[in-house]
């Protein structure tokens, strides 16, 4: 069986300040994805290699990394797609690297929490009144945005986030929009106050790469543009209301 070379970025803070690349030869098996190759390295070649993974099936969003410069889930990247190689593997761009391919995602988690990605109700509906009913069309309004698995590939693809760390970022904004478009939610105004600013929706310059790399076709770029339109409409409405009073 032929081999393929993986050039993996290593960062071992206890040994040096700067990351370096280490080459590994792995079997080029037709049914192996990059994650399988990394597991092979970890099990048989170098047990010190660190990376995150969990489900191996594109659901958990843990195994994102830069493969040949593009943010992808390593469980969905077949080795044969990169043959004859070498394949360059780096940690996800724009995040601080803790070790090897492991990045710190605290910034994303904080931002996600700040957009309140849950159904907000002004008054809770009593259980006795039954369930919230939703038509297929109403579900269709936000279903696409609800597919986000928080893999953060969109943050690695977004140059705005790379340049301005204050930017809320694609996934968090798409998830905010997911709840705004949910007819059970009443938190639109609350989120708008937090996100209609230079660090929120208006920081997005519509590069569009977030949607290109999204493994779940969430289209965060589309969500943000819809949010901007709603933000602009809100601004006009407030202007007219202010003039009218």
């Amino acid at each position, binding site marked *: 069986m032929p081999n393929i070379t993986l050039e993996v970025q290593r*960062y071992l*803070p*206890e040994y040096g*300040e*700067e*990351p370096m690349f280490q080459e590994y030869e792995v079997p080029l098996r037709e049914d192996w994805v990059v994650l399988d190759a990394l597991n092979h390295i970890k099990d048989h070649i170098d047990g010190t290699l660190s990376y995150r993974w969990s489900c191996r099936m594109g659901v958990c969003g843990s195994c994102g990394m830069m493969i040949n*410069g593009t943010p992808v889930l390593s469980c969905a990247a077949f080795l044969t797609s990169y043959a004859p190689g070498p394949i360059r593997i780096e940690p996800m*761009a*724009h995040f*601080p*690297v*803790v070790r090897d391919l492991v990045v*710190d995602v*605290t*910034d994303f988690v*904080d931002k996600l929490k700040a957009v309140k990605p849950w159904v907000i109700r002004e008054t809770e509906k009593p259980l006795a009144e039954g369930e919230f009913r939703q*038509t297929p*069309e109403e579900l*269709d*309004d936000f279903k696409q945005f609800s597919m986000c698995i928080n893999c953060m590939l969109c943050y690695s693809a977004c*140059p705005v986030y*790379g*340049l301005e*760390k204050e930017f809320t970022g694609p996934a968090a904004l798409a998830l905010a929009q997911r709840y705004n478009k949910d007819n059970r939610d009443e938190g639109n105004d609350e989120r708008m106050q937090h996100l209609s600013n230079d660090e929120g929706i208006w920081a997005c*310059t*519509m*590069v*569009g*790469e977030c949607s*290109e790399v999204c493994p779940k076709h969430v*289209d965060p*770029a*589309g969500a943000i*543009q*819809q949010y*901007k*339109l709603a933000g602009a409409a809100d601004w006009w409405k407030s202007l007219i209301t202010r003039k009218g009073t």
Partner: protein
Amino acid sequence: MSYTLHHPKWHRDSKPIFWWILRWAYIRFIFRELTSVAIAYFAVLLVLIYRAVQSGPEAYAALMGSLAHPVMITISLFALGAVLYHSITWFNLSPKAMVVRLGRFRVPDLMIAGGNYAAWFVISGIIAWAYVTG
């Protein structure tokens, strides 16, 4: 940013100044951003034409004369191409931002973009008609 205290030696990559040449999509994005300069050029030109019209026939003729110079014609043609690219990509993106529902029917993306193009052509036609007949 509220990072934990357990990893004092994170590695942080700084974005190189020429980050945008690393991917074709980023180059296309920067090029599109630069086409805004062409829009600014036509906006300034419009102001200059307005001022020349207000100043009288001589000022208007002088401005038209300078715009007829081959260098200015080349710049204007280049700017026109950039503005067309900017406008077309803008209209093509419009369905991303606009979700229009008519009852249970969701208006397809093609119709939303088509509506924008139609409005663009109609307004341009009216302006052209006013210019030719005026």
